[in-house]
């Protein structure tokens, strides 16, 4: 029952957001804020972060903090490149998962078997992952076609599909710049035009993860290990096994995120190309309060703002208006709830954004790069999170000791 209410709330919020974006688009003429290209780019930017975040979700739901996502992701980029080069992109995806899983296995070994502090192990894995990917690239890619000691480019990319009728129709409608209709058409268009099957795989993995973790026996057991491993153990759950499974899957997911970077976000491997996306994924997961929906929202927020600022700095200016309106709306809502101070702060901020929007024509391009980071901070600061992480997240667990 609670879940259904939540769904309604989300639906309302999403609808409100689309309406507002559409209105702002018409008002400012910044049609780039939700064009087909923008949405497609946002999806592409989101996927690697999302996979890392889902990886984090797996691991932390089983009670293991995985700060090593970045390292596992890096290993994934290498794995994707290596296996794609020799066996094609789908084996490459598998290779990314495999290498990421190896990183996860190392983390599981350290944290579960040896009971090492999770953060220490994660930090070590990040160092090892980066070092190993460079080392492996130097050892295996230097002499390949398109390869060098730091890169392997021109890899085959997973199949892309366009759904003929729908794609064209959506594009036609989106180009009309009508209110609401075009915005929805953009969404449809982005999902039917030149869509990488890897993106579909990512979506499937996210949904499958949510289903497995919350709807299956396996998931229940896994989550119980993150909430109260002693209780799980007392009921015959092999906690170590589930933690191992979770952390290995976590690594694999992060690795697949790395694979996406190497195969879809661009067509090649470059050392260090993850560029902190593993950490962003971690942030997205915390943002999402250790739940798949919120995590996806967090990844999308970041992916959208990041790709928007890279594609089209002028549209970033329109974001100011959106933020301003959003803030004022929130402020009014808070005011109705009787939270005056919060309402005043938000209102003032909102007005500031509106003034900024009205008095300028563009955001200085030097600042555009900060958009995703500031947006994330802003959303978090305003949402006033009541974070609830799994109760036994990050805690050492030793079999037979806490019963």
């Amino acid at each position, binding site marked *: 029952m609670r879940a259904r209410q939540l769904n309604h709330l989300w639906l309302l919020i999403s609808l409100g957001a689309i309406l507002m974006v559409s209105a702002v688009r018409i008002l400012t003429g910044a049609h780039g804020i939700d064009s087909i290209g923008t949405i497609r780019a946002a999806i592409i930017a989101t996927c690697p972060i999302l996979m890392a975040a889902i990886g984090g979700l797996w691991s932390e739901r089983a009670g293991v903090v995985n700060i090593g996502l970045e390292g596992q992701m890096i290993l994934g980029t290498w794995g994707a490149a290596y296996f794609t080069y020799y066996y094609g992109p789908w084996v490459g995806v598998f290779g990314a998962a495999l290498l990421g899983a190896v990183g996860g296995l190392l983390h599981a070994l350290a944290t579960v078997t*040896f009971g090492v502090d999770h953060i220490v192990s994660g*930090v*070590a*894995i990040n160092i090892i992952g980066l070092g190993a990917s460079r080392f492996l690239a130097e050892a295996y890619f230097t002499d390949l076609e398109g390869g060098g000691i730091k890169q392997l480019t021109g890899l085959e990319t997973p199949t892309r599909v366009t759904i003929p009728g729908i794609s064209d129709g959506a594009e036609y409608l989106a180009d009309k710049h009508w209110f609401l209709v075009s915005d929805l058409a953009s969404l449809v268009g982005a999902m039917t035009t030149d869509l990488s099957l890897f993106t579909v795989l990512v979506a499937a993995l996210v949904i499958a993860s949510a289903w497995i973790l919350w709807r299956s026996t396996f998931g229940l057991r896994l989550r119980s290990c993150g909430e109260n491993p002693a209780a799980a153990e007392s009921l015959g759950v092999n906690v170590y096994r589930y933690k191992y499974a979770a952390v290995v899957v976590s690594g694999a997911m992060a690795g697949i995120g790395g694979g996406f970077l190497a195969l879809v976000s661009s067509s090649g491997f470059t050392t260090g190309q993850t560029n902190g996306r593993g950490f962003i994924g971690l942030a997205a997961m915390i943002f999402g309060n250790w739940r798949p929906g919120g995590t996806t929202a967090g990844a999308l927020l970041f992916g959208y703002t990041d790709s928007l600022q890279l594609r089209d700095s002028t549209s970033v200016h329109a974001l100011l208006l959106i933020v301003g309106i959003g803030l004022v709306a929130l402020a009014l809502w808070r005011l109705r709830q009787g939270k005056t101070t919060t309402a005043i702060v938000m209102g003032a901020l909102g007005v500031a954004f509106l003034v900024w929007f009205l008095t300028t024509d563009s955001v200085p391009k030097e600042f555009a790069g900060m958009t995703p980071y500031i947006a*994330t901070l802003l959303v978090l600061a305003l949402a*006033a999170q009541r974070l609830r992480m799994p109760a036994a997240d990050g805690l050492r667990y030793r079999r037979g000791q806490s019963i």
Partner: protein
Amino acid sequence: MNALRRLGASLLAPVIAVVVAMIITSLVISLSGSSAGDFWSVIFSRPVDRAIVNIVNQTSLIYISALAAAIGFRMNLFNIGVEGQYTLASYAAATLAGAALFPGLLNVVLPLLLAVLVGAIWAGIAGLLKVTRGVSEVISTIMLNAIAITLVGYLLNKYGVHVGNGVRSTVIPESSRLDGWTFFEASDGPVWTLATLALLLGVGFWVLLNKTRFGFDLRATGMSQSAAVASGVNVNKMVVVSMLLSGAIAGLIWMPSFFGAAHSYGTAFQAGLGFTGIAVALLGRNQPVGIIFGAVLFAFLNEQSNRLTLETDISVNVVQITQGTIVLAVVVAYEVVRRYRTKLEQRTVAEELAGQRQPAPSERATT
């Protein structure tokens, strides 16, 4: 006897760790078709005088960075933002010092204070967001890192001095330079004056944590937030204060190098120390003495690895793998040894308790 056993146990962990790390590293090198012997003979050769100076200097930077991270860890705060904090602080201090608004040493002291202030403020934002809005410091410091680095790039481009293809802050006047002490040839370079800052901060850290009320509160909060609250600690205040402190220390990370060698913020700015610091803090178990070893080890490996490409065909990336492996191996070894020692300890407790109980007269067998 017992003490000896314990000492042996505490030395055991690092020794096991180093051996394990060496074995793994050797394996990696051999697998890649190079000679592990070459690698170790380079790494373990006596550093030349210049390298010793560099190791000392680098140790000081890494050490300060690790302290900054450690103070957060001791409070269960994960300040990943050291990187951004010291970047912004270094830029601010360099700009102020470059402006040469003050004479002589004042032009050192005030920029140092500014660095402390800027670092503290940047970290304080994360602290405030955490206590007022419940934003996880892990997220906010990651975001603040990116913002700081972009901001500095922007400011430097806009207000910096453009020389050739580079841009930097104004070079500080001779009178504000603190080059340090030359122990070997002049060309081997000096140990920077402000490297002593690391020492001071380390002692200060130790005293603060172990000898003061404040330190007690901080450690208590880190060990058990609930117990700390019940004991009267204002945890929100502690979160903000320790973030401020962490950021303040972070602000100083690059200062020895700045006043000792770089003299301006530009290509000579050494990025990445914030992340190294986190690893070293964890390696040193967030203890001021432990961190010394970690910092020396990292500085040593980095410096020696410099010679790898010149003298062998082994990739320097191997060193990174070694460093990561050491961190992991050390903590694993510590854990194994800790388990062993807990057993020892419990045995002693039980033995002594048994000793106390034995003579109790009230016990009598009943059937």
